[in-house]
């Protein structure tokens, strides 16, 4: 069993920045990541992307090249294609069990930074399980990793990622057929007072408006204030029907990209029983963190979107901060850069209140109609969940025991927050009281052979 000072899970901006920081102070670091190459989702495939991808994805994507370059030179022990399936607390820190190329291994780490980023917010709409329906993130991953685009695509939902993706597709020569935007018109008014009048905030808004202009120039129809959204089809998606500003529409299409924000990936922090609390502004559970990212479990840090959605730039700063905190612990010397990083982090987050006010989750997907599937793995509908609540199950884990929601292979990654939301709606209880699924190991399904052959020693 190998052992290092610091373990990091996730090779996005937070994980990479943390690794570089800790290595520059001379500490041993192991970074484990599921992907084959560093970059996370935001800078996915950055070291292997061609000129075409850089042209389409723009300078914000290309920025990641500097991060992976510094990481490559850092001397960090890098474990790609490694899926962490268990984390245990030990006297001396944590033990990670991970699967790589069909075999399981363990590594002991003194401190641990979780940098596993965000997941798409579940968007259960009628028909969302049909082949041809993906998350908007999935479309972008295809673009980054394979320079492949959806030819005939309707984007449904809201948020910065949706606009960015639409603009990138316009540049690729394959503009989306339409954008079905779920932002209620009143939100534009509501968000106005939250416009961040500082350089960082206005910078973000300026970028956003340029993207919107690019989409508009291409003539992509945007249906605003959409509601009553139904994805139609039998064996695959055939059309999206909805109402917009009082009129009924039906747009035929072969692909639908869904998006209404991203939420923290809480699988590891839940497994470790870190304390979490409902955040109404982000409309998600967040792990309770110190200013520098330490969870309620001593020595366990979260950096990046996993601690609350703040974007790639903040993730990088948070990764450095968490690493500095770990260095402080190990050396007993306070780190001069901590203060300025904390300030930078605050400044970078100034655009969030505006975005959160403008792009809240789509209400129809928070409380879907009774016959809409919510748990995709076990195929449980919203109506079944409401019935279970009526049958006295008023906690996420009771509904899980009762209906198997979250017991399928995705372990609630896709349906978890939607189930919490539905129980809260049906029972009238707070989301904190309803809670979230207990996350059991293995974090990812593990072949029985692999466990049987896993060489480990008991504690």
């Amino acid at each position, binding site marked *: 069993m190998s052992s290092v000072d610091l373990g990091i899970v996730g090779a996005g901006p937070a994980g990479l920045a943390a690794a570089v920081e800790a290595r520059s102070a001379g500490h041993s670091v192991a970074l484990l990541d599921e992907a084959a190459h560093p970059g996370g989702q935001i800078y996915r495939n950055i070291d292997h992307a061609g000129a075409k991808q850089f042209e389409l994805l723009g300078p914000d994507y290309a920025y990641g090249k500097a991060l992976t370059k510094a990481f490559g030179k850092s001397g960090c022990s890098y474990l790609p294609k490694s899926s962490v399936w268990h984390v245990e607390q030990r006297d001396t820190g944590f033990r990670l069990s991970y699967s790589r190329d069909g075999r399981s291994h363990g590594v002991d780490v003194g401190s641990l930074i979780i940098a596993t980023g965000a997941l798409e917010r579940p968007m259960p709409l009628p028909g969302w*399980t049909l082949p041809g329906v993906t998350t908007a993130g999935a479309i972008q991953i295809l673009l980054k990793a394979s320079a492949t685009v959806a030819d005939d695509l309707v984007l449904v939902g809201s948020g910065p990622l949706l606009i960015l993706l639409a603009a990138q597709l316009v540049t690729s020569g394959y503009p989306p057929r339409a954008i079905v935007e779920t932002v209620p018109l009143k939100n534009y008014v509501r968000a106005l007072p939250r416009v961040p009048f500082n350089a960082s905030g206005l910078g973000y808004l300026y970028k956003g408006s340029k993207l919107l202009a690019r989409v508009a120039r291409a003539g992509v129809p945007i249906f605003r204030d959409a509601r009553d959204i139904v994805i139609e089809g039998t064996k695959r998606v055939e059309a999206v029907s909805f109402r917009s500003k009082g009129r009924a*529409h039906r747009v035929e299409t072969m692909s639908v990209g869904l998006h209404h924000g991203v939420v923290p990936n809480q699988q590891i922090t839940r497994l470790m029983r870190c304390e979490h609390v409902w955040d109404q502004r982000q409309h998600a559970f967040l792990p309770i963190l110190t200013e520098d990212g330490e969870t309620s479990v001593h020595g366990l840090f979260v950096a990046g979107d996993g601690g609350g959605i703040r974007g790639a730039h903040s993730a990088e700063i948070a990764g450095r901060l968490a690493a500095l905190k770990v260095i402080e612990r190990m050396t007993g010397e306070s780190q001069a850069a901590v203060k300025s990083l904390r300030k930078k982090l605050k400044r970078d987050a100034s655009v969030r209140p505006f975005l959160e006010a403008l792009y809240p989750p789509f209400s129809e997907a928070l409380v879907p109609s009774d016959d809409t599937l919510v748990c995709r793995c076990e195929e449980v509908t919203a109506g079944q969940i409401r019935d279970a609540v009526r049958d006295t199950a008023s906690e996420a884990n009771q509904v899980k025991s009762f209906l198997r929601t979250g017991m399928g*292979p995705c372990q609630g990654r896709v349906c978890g927050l939607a189930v919490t939301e539905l129980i809260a709606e049906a029972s009238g209880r707070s989301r904190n009281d309803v809670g979230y699924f207990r996350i059991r190991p293995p974090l990812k399904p593990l072949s029985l052979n692999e466990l049987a052959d896993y060489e480990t020693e008991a504690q």
Partner: protein
Amino acid sequence: MIYGVHCKDTVQTHMAILTNRLDETLMYQRLLSISDPVKFTFEGQTLTAQAGESVAAALLASNVESFRDTPVSHSLRSPFCMMGSCFDCLVEIDGQPNCQACMTEVRDGMEIYRQRGEA
């Protein structure tokens, strides 16, 4: 009936954009031609992909519509998240069921089948 009403002008506008394209409309299009080919089979049919990409991307770029049917209701599914979270892209690769197509790199000679129901 609310649904099923065509908003004709919208559809027409959009059709105009589509007809400007020279190629046939497919689900997915590669922006770059394959420079480093990998040959594999899906349901016995030989397909080609770019080396280094995932099985899921390779199948989607080949316009494979459904990857599996579900063990609960046998309804069809294809990749939803492309980042290892949703498990809707499960396929059988070289005899091993329950493989996440989006997390597996495509390799020369792979034999891939749809996963039908439970493994």
